[in-house]
């Protein structure tokens, strides 16, 4: 067999890749036939409910479960984060932390059992004011979270006798003194939660010494080792399954401590266990995204090009006390001179976990707003200021890409027609309108992925890969790649994913999945096809390189009469199936995938200045992504990201009681989210210049979820002429800002 050269079919030859293909499991999902972890019930299972700590900061002194144990149907009370009799108290640092689990015959009995637990707490002072740096400092709730400085070479170096910090301070101040425009501002974005529609958890049982887990996970192939580590068994004794998942967004990579508790309870009781979080537990401990607040001073030249950036930001990731990573400040833009500092705030909240494009949405929302305020100060067009500052960005090779994307975005939102200077638009009654921009970047390198592909002698095709479909259409992409490569209709391939017993495939985090499965499935299919071509070539007495697979046939290029049907060709395999396992390792040089995308988003909003209500009129997303695999699911990925951006910009906010620290809006009736009527018109544009396809597949999960918040915040500022500093831009905040501006 000749060595296989991995490649993608040329555009004009592709039947499926780059086309609009509906999700293969769309019908199952929309009819409820698809079984999510939450839907799985095992024979003789017990249901577990857990007591969440009602206090943000306390010590659990003791647990009295005697009344719980008397509830008919309660089978086991299991301490999770609570002391056994005689043990030291356990300190709890977040509202909702699971203390005690109750396993019972039904969910209602388990809940009743939980309600009868008597727990003694010693209350400790809590702190949740993550926006208030001074208060945090006074309460010793801060931690240094990095920083640094870089000055233009021309400025030189401090002399041997200079105090370095003093010298730097002097140079920074000189740069501000030389600046034509200086902008000072403060900006912020609150903590939001992942709010997965399907809560975290598992339904599991022990089969002898083997743990079989249905787990709502973004990490099918590697959740087993999390269970194994905690339970002191080997990863080969754990099977993890997840056919469908109802949202993860970066929060579902591990068994979590309640998954481990479920396995322990199953062991103790000898019964299958179903343990998924309740809605309020899901919001409280299922995952959250850190907040960020910033004081910024920037200086720009007469053209509005920022020459010096000086910032200090803070925020909270919960009780571990870190904040948004300082490395991305200012976001995408990188003036020649910058100084930045970060402080983490320790609050009594569950530690945050990855949320779609970790750090980027916050960095974008609290730094690109300062660039927009520069435009406001200069009485200039924001689009011009963004364009001019492309001369100083962190990936200079992308500046032309951004410029082109901004041009396209401006056309799509009709920027020139609707633009007005900040606060200078026409009013209709109390309503004003505005435009805003944000730009973003992301890597999107393909993750490692292996695929086992079997071709049966009867022509059947099946694949096995331990990847997962987060709802974005991974299963469909796998089938498309195989069907495209083998020249078969998409229904002719049977794709199997969602089990840790299948060949390894990386976790779905960082926009790495579409690249991963495209790599492994294309490689496997090209290899298997090469083997099949060898057999067919021999039979047809033609060179294998003259063969092609299309329309369910393998034929000789240019000789349509010389061909075999797929089935006939497969009959040449013999009695055993033809099997190939492809292996792709993250970072391997490949013609099939690459990384690094740019993107811009623009928003047009209307603001009712009497009520502070903000309404999205239109949002435009311009996004490059290399080779587009499935145009339909790629589009819907971006629509979803825009809606998430609107949610975080206008609605979502974790609200902690300032006194007790309790997370008080942890139900969907009080945790506000946008509805369809709140999204306005959403326009998605794939930026596909001529060379884009040649870059291969690049992940799309995170990038479109980054810059929408900045675009909306900037649009509100453009509409009202007033900066509403902190997202979400609730009516209260808009009115407060308008009132402050009036003086």
């Amino acid at each position: 067999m000749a060595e296989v050269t991995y490649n993608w079919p040329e555009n004009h030859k592709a039947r499926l890749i780059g086309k609009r293909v509906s999700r293969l499991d769309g019908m199952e999902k929309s009819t409820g036939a698809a079984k999510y972890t939450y839907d799985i019930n095992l024979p003789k299972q017990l249901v577990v409910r857990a007591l969440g700590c009602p206090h943000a900061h306390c010590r659990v002194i003791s647990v009295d479960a005697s009344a719980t144990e008397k509830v008919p149907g309660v089978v086991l009370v299991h301490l999770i984060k609570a002391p056994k009799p005689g043990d030291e108290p356990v300190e709890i640092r977040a509202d909702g932390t699971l203390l005690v689990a109750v396993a019972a015959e039904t969910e209602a009995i388990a809940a009743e059992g939980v309600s009868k637990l008597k727990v003694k707490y010693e209350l400790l002072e809590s702190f949740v004011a993550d926006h208030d740096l001074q208060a945090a400092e006074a309460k010793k709730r801060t931690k240094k979270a990095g920083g640094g400085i870089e000055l233009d070479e021309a400025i030189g170096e401090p002399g041997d006798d200079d105090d370095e910090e003093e010298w730097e301070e002097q140079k920074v101040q000189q740069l501000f003194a030389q600046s034509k425009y200086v902008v000072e501002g403060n900006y912020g974005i609150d903590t939001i939660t992942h709010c997965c529609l399907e809560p975290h958890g598992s339904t599991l049982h022990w089969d002898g010494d083997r743990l079989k887990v249905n787990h709502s996970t973004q990490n099918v192939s590697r959740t087993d080792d999390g269970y194994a580590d905690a339970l002191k068994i080997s990863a080969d004794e754990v099977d993890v399954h997840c056919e469908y998942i109802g949202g993860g967004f970066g929060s579902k990579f591990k068994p979590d401590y309640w998954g481990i508790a479920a396995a322990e309870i199953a062991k103790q009781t000898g019964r299958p266990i179903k343990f998924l979080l309740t809605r309020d537990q899901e919001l409280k401990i299922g995952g959250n995204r850190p907040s960020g607040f910033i004081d910024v001073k920037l200086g720009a030249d007469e053209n509005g090009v920022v020459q010096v950036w000086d910032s200090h930001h803070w925020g909270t990731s919960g009780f571990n006390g870190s904040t948004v990573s300082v490395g991305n400040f200012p976001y995408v833009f990188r003036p020649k001179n910058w100084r930045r500092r970060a402080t983490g705030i320790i609050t009594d909240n569950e530690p945050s976990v990855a949320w779609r494009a970790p750090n980027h949405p916050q960095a974008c929302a609290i730094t690109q707003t300062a660039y927009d305020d520069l435009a406001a100060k200069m009485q200039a067009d924001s689009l011009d200021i963004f364009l001019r500052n492309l001369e100083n960005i962190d990936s200079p090779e992308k500046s032309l890409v951004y410029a082109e994307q901004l041009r396209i975005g401006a056309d799509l939102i009709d920027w020139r027609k609707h633009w007005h200077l900040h606060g200078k638009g026409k009013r209709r009654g109390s309503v004003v309108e505005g435009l805003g921009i944000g730009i973003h970047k992301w890597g999107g390198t393909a993750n490692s992925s292996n695929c086992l592909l079997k071709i049966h002698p009867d022509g059947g095709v099946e694949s096995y890969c331990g990847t997962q479909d987060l709802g974005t259409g991974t299963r469909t992409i796998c089938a498309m790649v195989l069907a495209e490569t083998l020249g078969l209709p998409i229904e002719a391939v049977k794709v199997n994913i969602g089990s840790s017993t299948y060949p390894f495939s990386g976790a779905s985090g960082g926009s790495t999945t579409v690249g991963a499965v495209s790599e492994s499935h294309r490689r496997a299919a090209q290899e298997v096809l090469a083997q099949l071509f060898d057999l067919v070539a021999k039979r047809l007495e033609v060179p294998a390189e003259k063969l092609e697979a299309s329309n369910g046939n393998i034929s000789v290029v240019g000789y349509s009469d010389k061909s075999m049907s797929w089935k006939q060709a497969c009959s040449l395999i013999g009695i055993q199936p033809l099997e190939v396992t492809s292996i792709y390792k993250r970072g391997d040089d490949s013609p099939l995938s690459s990384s690094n995308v740019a993107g811009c988003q623009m928003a047009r909003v209307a603001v009712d200045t009497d009520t502070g209500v903000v309404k999205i009129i239109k949002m435009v997303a311009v996004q490059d992504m290399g080779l587009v695999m499935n145009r339909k699911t790629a589009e819907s990925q971006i629509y979803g990201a825009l809606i998430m951006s609107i949610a975080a910009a206008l609605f979502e906010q974790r609200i902690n009681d300032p006194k007790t620290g309790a997370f008080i809006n942890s139900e969907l009736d009080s945790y506000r989210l946008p509805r369809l009527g709140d999204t306005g018109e959403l326009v998605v544009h794939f930026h596909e210049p001529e060379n884009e396809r040649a870059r291969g597949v690049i992940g799309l999960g995170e990038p479109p979820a980054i810059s929408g918040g900045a675009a909306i915040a900037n649009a509100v500022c453009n509409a009202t002429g007033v900066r509403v500093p902190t997202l979400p831009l609730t009516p209260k905040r808009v009115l407060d800002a308008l009132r402050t501006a009036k003086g």
Partner: protein
Amino acid sequence: MKNFEYAQPTTEDEAVALLTEPKKDTAVLAGGTDLVGLMKRMVVTADRVVNISEIKSLQQVERDDNGSVWIGAAVCLGDFLDNRHTDQYPSTKQVIQGISSIQLQSQGTLVGELLRRPNCWYFREGHGLLADSGRMVNEGDNRYHAILGNRGPARFVNASRLAPSLITLGAQVRIIGPEKDEEQILELADLYRTPAADSELENVLQPGQFVTHVIIPTHGDRLTAAYEVRQGEGPDQPLAAAAVSIDVVAGTVQNASIVLGQVAPTPWIAREAAQLLCGKEVTEESAAMVGHQAVSGAMPLSQNEYKIQLAQVAVKRAVLKAAGYDTGGLDTPMPLEPTVSPSLETHIA
């Protein structure tokens, strides 16, 4: 959720009997859109749940000899919207349309909506209606709490979105129990009260009593409207609301009724504001003045001063809307092109 007995009576008498059994904590179930959530959160822990929706007499929308329309306690919001007898109550329909959830419209009942328990997060977290005599709200996050009627320990806002419009329409409720054959007709406005002690509810219903009907009188030629300040298009609780009913003769308001929602522990009847409107033409200025008057006694908590403006705007817009004018907010169709508004006077024919 605690285990409970479930009863499904088919007559009003059976229902009263089931609700009044001694030593049983009972709850009335109709649509369940509020009750079930509260039971799951263990805020309501009834021993017995009595489902009244199978009682035939409660399933109807009927017109009596006086022209009043009787809405049974099992009638859902969607059925009210679709019923021809209710076309004369546009302000109520406007609010139901704003409860933009097909599930709530189809499952939730009109009477249940009137009795929805407060959305106050301290109440729903199990701290009681008064949440430590108002201290938790005062020291806590009170962005959605009361700006009026908040000088006692109660700081929550009444949760009903329909009550303001129905009160302006002069609606009454029929209440039965706790004794067999005991029945009373009460002004809807009098159903509500501001609790002063932990033992009191936000309504006057006694254990064993329940509302069987809402009775809405015929409206005559009054102009009615409701305006809710909503952050988004979802079914979330509005930030402030007002309903208005006015008699306009020869361009001048003769009678007016103005009720605010989401601002106080009860629907808030703005009598002085309504009085101020009488004898005037509805104009931008008079509507704004009435809005201003409606919140003149407001006393904000630490985080909800913005609600004073919202309540003021809600009243102003409800008045304008009742008189048939553009409210000037985001409800105006977009895109917003500059237009020359005809003067208000030319509209009053």
